[in-house]
């Protein structure tokens, strides 16, 4: 059975909450009841039928054609299945996601993968600020799963990350891995200013970065761990695998202004 498809008819007149259009919530719904799902975020009620044309199909694989930076909460909380957006998304894409696979063929706004717990999120373009971070006021950022950004990410990527893997094939804005608790953040390009600021534990890899003086250079062979990580990365990001398995990676422990048990690997 082919995918369930939503075609965007015209640009949305306001910000939308698309978190209902996810495989586990759409399963078992008739096209008519899908058309009545509410997407609006203001008093003016907007339903699916106002914005999208539906082509029925298997709800385990949902495709949304046509993006908008007003598409908020895409795939938020999804637990299974596959959700593909042919276009860009707004903020909180994949927020609190627990399973399944979310693909955005475009850019994502702020707070993508915020508080994510499992599953896979791929963004073929750029991600906004606070990738894999906590929601405002939250204590923990990403706690599991895999995030892959083919482009670059904004500020504070991996803020308070607790577990899981984030791969950014481009660079980042300032403060990547800020206040990181554990997990792995890989920046294949250039990390922005103050990488690993107040990082407690966790691993940050960067192709290029200007480290804080509170990161201390350490020595010792870590190649076995990096081989294992590179093997896990190679199916979806050969670029990250090449960075991680590199011969000339320098290792630093920090942020010594915080707990100081985090590590930063820099390509020479």
């Amino acid at each position, binding site marked *: 059975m082919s995918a369930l498809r939503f075609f965007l008819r015209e640009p949305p007149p306001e910000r939308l909450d698309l978190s209902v259009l996810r495989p586990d919530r759409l399963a078992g719904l008739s096209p008519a009841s899908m058309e009545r799902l509410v997407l609006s975020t203001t008093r003016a009620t907007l339903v699916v039928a106002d914005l999208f044309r539906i082509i029925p199909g298997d709800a385990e694989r949902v495709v949304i054609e046509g993006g908008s930076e007003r598409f908020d909460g895409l795939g938020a909380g999804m637990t299974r299945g596959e959700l593909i957006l042919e276009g860009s998304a707004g903020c909180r894409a994949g927020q609190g996601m627990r399973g399944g696979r979310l693909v955005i063929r475009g850019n994502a706004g702020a707070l993508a993968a915020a508080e994510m717990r499992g599953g896979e999120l791929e963004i073929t373009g750029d991600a906004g600020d606070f990738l894999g971070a906590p929601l405002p006021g939250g204590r923990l950022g990403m706690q599991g799963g895999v995030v892959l950004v083919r482009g670059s990410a904004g500020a504070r990527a991996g803020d308070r990350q607790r577990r899981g893997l984030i791969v950014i094939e481009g660079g980042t804005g300032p403060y990547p891995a800020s206040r990181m608790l554990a997990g792995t953040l890989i920046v294949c390009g250039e990390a922005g200013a103050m990488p690993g600021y107040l990082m407690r534990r966790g691993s940050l890899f960067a192709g290029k970065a200007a480290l804080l003086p509170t990161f201390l250079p350490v020595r010792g062979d870590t190649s076995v761990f990096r081989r*294992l990580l590179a093997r896990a990365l190679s199916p979806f990001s050969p670029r990250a695998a090449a960075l991680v398995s590199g011969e000339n990676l320098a290792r630093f422990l920090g942020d010594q202004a915080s707990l100081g048990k985090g*590590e930063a690997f820099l390509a020479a």
Partner: protein
Amino acid sequence: MPELTINGVAIDDTFAEAFDMRATAIIITAPTPAWAKEAARSMTGFATSIIGCGVEAGIERFLEADETPDGRVGVRVLLFAGSTSELQKQLQNRLGQCVLTATGSACYAGLESAEKLKLGDAVRYFGDGWQIAKRFGGKRYWRIPVMEGEFVCEATTGLVKTAVGGGNLLLLGKTPQATRRAAEAAVEAMRKVADVILPFPGGIVRSGSKVGAKYKGMIASTNDAYCPGLFGVVQSRLDPEIVSVLEIVIDGLSSQAVAEAMRAGMAAALALGPEAGAARLSAGNYGGKLGKHHFHLKDLAPKEFPS
């Protein structure tokens, strides 16, 4: 008792009696095959019989670089014990003393199962707070800083509750040399079988035991019925021409693996014939009431033998 003769070698109509055991497997990798072997040899040392060692362990096979999790050469080690708790205890002691300490080593699960034994989870505290847990690719690893660099160890390994221990083959020969030759040939063939180990030195036991003794408190003592030096004096199982007896003990992750090893070992011993190798093959049992698994030699003997 011999009912069947193949290539001039008599095969007793008897069976090997084997027991249910708990088993696990781990993979040890290293920069060179020699160092992987060194770590595995150390870990599986003094692990011939659960009677005195707590665990029976051995190298199952050597692994090429493309067969291991980290792409280095390695070995697969199997460990067998009578209970899950004893297996866990032996595994973590031996991991901590013999693999953690071995230069260049890393350690991974050697089999998957729903129930787990602690591997890195048991030795992580050696890191004294500097140990790092990493989870990716569906697995969790511990990285423990050591003087050489870093010891990487998967958090857990699998557990097999239906493993089989105590499969055996007795080789009875007309000279010690011929008997040893038959045993060596059988061991070489058995070691090619997957999922089995031969826990005794060189795969061979020269001092097979019976249950109990005349002395109080001894749970096992020499198997006098098969000692050529006592032939005629005790109730012997030997024939007048038998001068030496060797035993091969087989532990396997499944009863099929043990049967396969016995089949391979018998074929190799039989091929030598009664003069160059063993004149008679037999197996050890306790009357069939103690062990769940019975491996009848006549079922495992080669059906067609090229003469």
